[in-house]
Each structure stands twice: as structure tokens, then as C-alpha cells.
């Protein structure tokens, strides 16, 4: 609704051009906003003649939200205060016992730590590499299409397949990379070494996301007016200075958007990779919060405990979203 608001509904009235529009970092950045600004100045109010019509129009969205989001989330909250056997034949109401059990478990705290390291490293690596490749690709003149296409292909690969690919390369017994590492005197055994296992899943998860970041960074780079950079060059700024003083700040809406997307990706969408590569092991070294929800719920059939973990996850996501849009977005230059 936000991005389609260009001048027709009343919602544009609050977002005067001086205040930075909240949440809009998620939409396509930079270019579109430029076209929106004059429109929001028009300040036009449209009133529906039929009072029921607006409700009818938002109904599909509301129904979808209710059925697919609110209802399951509610079910999850209910489940989190129950203790049930696998078949649901006996149910007890246990207040917050599932939660106290969870936080008394030292392994759950470790899972938190793993998740923070994993998500931070994955997002950082994917963003850094994506930006680097985008800056490089932006300079390529000949064969640019082929180069870009190659860089984008990993995004089309399913997480599970990507996991298996990396697993094959790094398998301690038959993997090519593991074999090469052994040649140079480094023992690679992610089945036993927790840090190596964590490194492997981070690599596999980041690799998949680089293409996506690359695509958006490249679009962002191409939207930066050449004149600004040329002006800086005339003023005597070297390539490094031009990048950090001009390009990087102008890219900040894209970067912000990608930070949000990448963190969400690392948090929630990397399950398939962890599942295929390490299964959370060795000794829980690669078990993230989401993986544990799956493991306790679907392997262990502990639905109460799993639901309690989902509730914790939900709280984390709400917290993260608030922090991201309240504090980080303030530093973004549009």
C-alpha cells in the first residue's frame, strides 16, 4: 500500500518530504522516491462514497493475514503453554514451564550464541562480497552481461542443493577441497571440529546470498549520477576516497535494505543448508534457533517446547525489526 500511494489516497499526507518516510527502505529505493515527492505535496483527499467499499477492498488482505499469519501464530502461542504427547491424546496446561525449561537449558543459550555468530558472519560475508563484486562489475565494459549472469546463478539454486554441493567439496573423506587442504598439511574434519563446521555452513549460506546482494548493489551503483563522482574526481579525490565519501553514503538505502533482508535470510532461510551440511552438529556447534525449533518439534515431537522456542523467535524478530527501523534507518541518507 505504501509504495502505491502516489497521490491517490490520504496516506501520503503524513509523510511530508522533510521527514524520512518510515519503513519505506524495504521498497525499491532511490529512483522511485524521487518521483513520489512532488506527488505527496499535492495533498489530495479521496473519500469513498460507499462506506462499505473500503472494507471490502482490504478484506482479502485481512483474510489472508488472519488465516495465514494471525491464526497460526495464535496456535503457536497456545501450544507454548501446553505439554502434549506426540499424538495429542493427552494435554496439560503448564503455564510458562516450557519457557523456564528452555532458559534453564545451557544448550539453548549456546544456540543463541551460535545464531548470532552465524547470522552476523553470513550477512557480513554476503554483503561484503556482493558489494565488492558489484563495484567490480560496474567497471566492466566488455562481456558485462555474461559476467553478471554468472554471478547471479547461485541465487537460482535451492538451499538444500547448495548445501549438498558444499558438503561434497568439503567431505573429510571424499571432498576435493578437504583433499587439497590435507595436501598442504591442514586437517579438515568438520564432522568433528565445530569451528570448521560453522565456517562451512557460513560459507555455503553466504555464497547463496551473494548474487542477490550483487544484483541490488549493482542497481544502486548504476543509479548514482556519474556527474557527482566526476565532480569529486576533478576536486582531486582518489578512487578510495570517492567510494567511501560519495558512493557508499549514496548507496546507504540499498545497504540498509540488504542488511535487513540478509539478516532475515540468515536467521530463517538457512535451515535447509544446515540440515543438509551438518544437521546442527557436531555437538550443537551449528545449531541455530530455527534449526532447533525444527529439531525439537519435528524430530523430537516436543510440540510445547518447540512452540515456546517459536514464541521466543517471534519476540526476537519483532525486536530486531523495531531496532532496525528506529535506530539504523536514521543513519541512512536518502
Amino acid at each position, binding site marked *: 500500500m505504501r509504495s502505491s500511494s502516489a497521490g491517490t489516497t490520504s496516506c501520503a499526507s503524513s509523510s511530508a518530504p522533510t521527514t524520512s518516510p518510515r519503513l519505506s527502505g524495504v521498497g525499491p529505493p532511490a529512483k522511485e522516491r524521487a518521483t513520489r515527492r512532488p506527488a505527496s505535496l499535492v495533498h489530495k483527499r479521496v473519500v469513498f462514497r460507499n462506506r462499505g467499499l473500503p472494507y471490502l477492498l482490504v478484506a482479502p488482505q485481512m483474510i489472508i493475514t488472519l488465516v495465514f499469519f494471525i491464526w497460526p501464530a495464535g496456535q503457536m502461542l497456545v501450544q507454548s503453554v501446553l505439554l502434549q504427547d506426540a*499424538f495429542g491424546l493427552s494435554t496439560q496446561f503448564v503455564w510458562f514451564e516450557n519457557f523456564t525449561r528452555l532458559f534453564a537449558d545451557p544448550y539453548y543459550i549456546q544456540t543463541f550464541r551460535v545464531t548470532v555468530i552465524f547470522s552476523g558472519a553470513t550477512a557480513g560475508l554476503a554483503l561484503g562480497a556482493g558489494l565488492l563484486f558489484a563495484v567490480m562489475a560496474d567497471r566492466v565494459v566488455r562481456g558485462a552481461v555474461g559476467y553478471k549472469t554468472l554471478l547471479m546463478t547461485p541465487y537460482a539454486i535451492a538451499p538444500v542443493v547448495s548445501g549438498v554441493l558444499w558438503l561434497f567439496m568439503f567431505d573429510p573423506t571424499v571432498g576435493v577441497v578437504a583433499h587439497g587442504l590435507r595436501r598442504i598439511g591442514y586437517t579438515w574434519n568438520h564432522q568433528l571440529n565445530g569451528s570448521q563446521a560453522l565456517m562451512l555452513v557460513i560459507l555455503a549460506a553466504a555464497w547463496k546470498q551473494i548474487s542477490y546482494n550483487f544484483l541490488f548493489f549493482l542497481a544502486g551503483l548504476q543509479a548514482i549520477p556519474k556527474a557527482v563522482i566526476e565532480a569529486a574526481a576533478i576536486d582531486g579525490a582518489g578512487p578510495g576516497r570517492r567510494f567511501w565519501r560519495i558512493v557508499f553514503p549514496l548507496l546507504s538505502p540499498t545497504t540498509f535494505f540488504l542488511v535487513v533482508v540478509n539478516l532475515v535470510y540468515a536467521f530463517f532461510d538457512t535451515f535447509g543448508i544446515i540440515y543438509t551440511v551438518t544437521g546442527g552438529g557436531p555437538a550443537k556447534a551449528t545449531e541455530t534457533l530455527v534449526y532447533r525449533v525444527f529439531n525439537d518439534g519435528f524430530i523430537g515431537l516436543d510440540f510445547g517446547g518447540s512452540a515456546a522456542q517459536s514464541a521466543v523467535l517471534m519476540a526476537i524478530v519483532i525486536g530486531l525489526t523495531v531496532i532496525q527501523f528506529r535506530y539504523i534507518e536514521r543513519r541512512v541518507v536518502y
Partner: protein
Amino acid sequence: MTRSGRWFTLAALIAVGLAVGAGRAEAVVEIQWWHAMDGALEEWVKDLADGFNKSQSEYHVNAIYKGNYTEVMTGAIAAFRAKQQPHIVQVIEVGTGTMMAAKGAVKPVYELMADANEKFDPKAYLPAVTGYYTTPDGRMLSFPLNSSTPVLYYNKDAFKKAGLDPNKPPKTWPEMGEYGKKLQAAGYPCGFSSQWQQWILLENYSAWHNVPIATKQNGFAGFDTELQLNTPIHVRIIDQLAQWQKTKLFDYGGRKGDANPKFATGECGMFLGSSASYAGFVKAAQGKFEFGIGMMPYWPDVAGAPQNSIIGGASLWVLSGHKPEEYKGVARFFTYLSSPEVQAASHQRTGYLPITLAAYELTKKQGFYEKNPGTDTSIRQINNKPPTDNSKGLRLGNYAQIRDVMDEELEAVWAGKKTAKEGLDAIVKRGNDLLRQFERTNH
């Protein structure tokens, strides 16, 4: 033809089709069987269903692949909660405790057979196999479809290279160490490895040495059971393996069957693995090396060892909430599966254990074991001595999670982060928490 006329014709065709379909369903009772067998084993399962369907005309068994063991079990549970459950579901052995406790959800096999007036003699089955799925007073709860037991595979070519007798596999743990060292001296990077460490190095190790895995007859006699895996005899083996891990005399190769390549590629000269891995190793080793099969090693100074090994694999559970005539079909199907011919053929085809004495005798008579030396090791091992309370199997709730705990803690021991005693203590403590939780939800 007008447009509406065309639609009418189409609707009529569909109606006729539905009527025909319904007519067929009335004549034949359909039985849904969810299983977890893929690849070559899926064909085996299909052949079992086809064989039964051709043997009579009243019932029709549909064998449906529903993913791996975990997916089949969670799928069946979800289906039960939604009242859409299949008649038969194949459940991995660790799910036995969960299935057994779900009294309203399953129909025990002994009851099924009695209700259907099918001839059923529990004594015809191998006690070492069915014991796992039987109550302490001898009533069979689920039907053992595929059972295996761990054996010792060894690379005969590697043995020759190391100056060892290729027809004499090590029998004891000290010999394992000795042979492993010789293999390493001959250039092999690793002495031996193992798959399914919880099942082989903890559960079967306990049974083989006739010591309990848990109190209350390994959980058979009640839910108020506690793990007993941190006794000196358990610490002894885990500590020994942790020592050997340092020099790769023993080399951990990952969870479940992930370690298989370590033997198949010739990296490790010896390997503790399921008897059902036989077919896979035959294929992998073809043209590369010859291998033999021995029994699991034991400590010679432990009184009573070796006792008998316990099984792994899966059994068929019948879910409640179906019509009597459908249960009759399920009972008929189980009778078909128990016949010596079907059993013997399955045993020879898959490497799983035969579940009846008659099938074992028939296989022997057909000369199968002579043609394929070593394939009877598994049967001799589970029948080594009459099963005791310690070697009948185990029945623990939340066991899938407890097995995860075992994997995690053992990995910490192999990595040198914990001592054997610390790791086993943690298994007992965390495992007992899960057992208490199970006890609370099932009473």
C-alpha cells in the same frame, strides 16, 4: 454443440468416471501403507505389496513412500491428529517407545490378529527380533518389517598388506587396537570407524556385554526408567575410543551412515556397521577390495560377554480408527509377510534379518549362506545367547531426542572437549530430563 452442451458432456463423463471408481473401491478394500524405504528398498516394498495383491482379490495394499523415517512418523502423527491416518505406518525402532505409549492411537498386532481370526503364533518368530516390539508378558505390538544388527566389516586386502590373517577378524577390543595399529603401520590412515554410534557403541555395546542401558529392563517395565550409560564399563569403551581418536586408530566419521565412505573408499581397514549395509558395501568394494564380516568386539575380561546383540530398523504399526474389514485385510497382509517364502526372499534380497525361524531354516536349506559367506553373522550374533533383560532391546520415550543428545555428547568427547566420563554423565542427565518429560505426558 453449444457451449453449455459441451460442459454437460464433460460433467457427465466425470460423473461416470466417479461412479466407476466408487464401484471399484466397494469391491476391493483399500489399505494404505506409509513407508520410508527409498531406492532399491522401495522396489522391494512395492514387490511385497504387489505379491500380496496378486495372491488374493479382496484387499489392495497401497505402498506409499512418505519420505525418510522421521518424515513418515511425523507425517503419520500429523495425519492422526487430522483424522486422516493410514492403516499401516513404518516406524523406526527409536519411535517404538512413543508409539507404544500412544495407546489410543495404535492397534496392537496381537489384538489385530485375534480380532481378524488370523492364525498367529508368536513363537514362530525369532525372539531376538520380535522381543524389541513385544510387551514384557509376550504380546506383540508391532510387526517387525526390517531389522538389522551391527557387525564388523573388515578389508581383507588391507589385512593382507598389514600382515594379518584375512580370515581372522579381531574378536575383542584389545585386538581391535592391535589390528588397527598394524593397519596404520601398513599405510592406512585410519584403523576403524563406526556408523550409528549411539546404536552400536552404546546400545549394542551394552547388550553385547549384558549390562543395562536403562533401569526397569531398559524401559520395558515402565516409564519411570533412568539411563545407566555412565557406568565404569561404558566409560571404559568411550575413553578407549577417545584415546584412539587422537591417533585416528579409531576415526569418527559423522552421524548415522555418514561414515560409510570411510570403509567403502578403503580409508579405514575395519568398520562397525549395520548388517543391512552389506549390499551397499558389496557394490562399493567391487573390483577394489574384498571384505569379510565378523562379530562385534567385546572385552574378554567382562563376565558373560559376548551376550547377544540387539536389532535396529523399523516395524509396522497399525493405527486405530479404521473399519473392521480393513483391519482384516491388514491381518491377512501380515500373515502373507510372515510366510517363510516371502521372508526368506526378503532376507536374501535386502540383508535384513529374517523374522521367523522357518525363514532362516529355508534360507539355510537353499544354500544362501554358503554362497555368501559372512551373511549369517548377524543372525548368529542376535541368537548368540537367549536374550536377557539387558539384551532384549530398549523402550524409552523421547528416544529420538535422546539419541540426538548421545550424538552431541559423543562428538564433544571425540573432539577432546569433554572426557568420556563427563560426556556420558551429560548423556545420562540430559537423557533423564527427557525421560521425565515423556513420563509426564504419557501416563
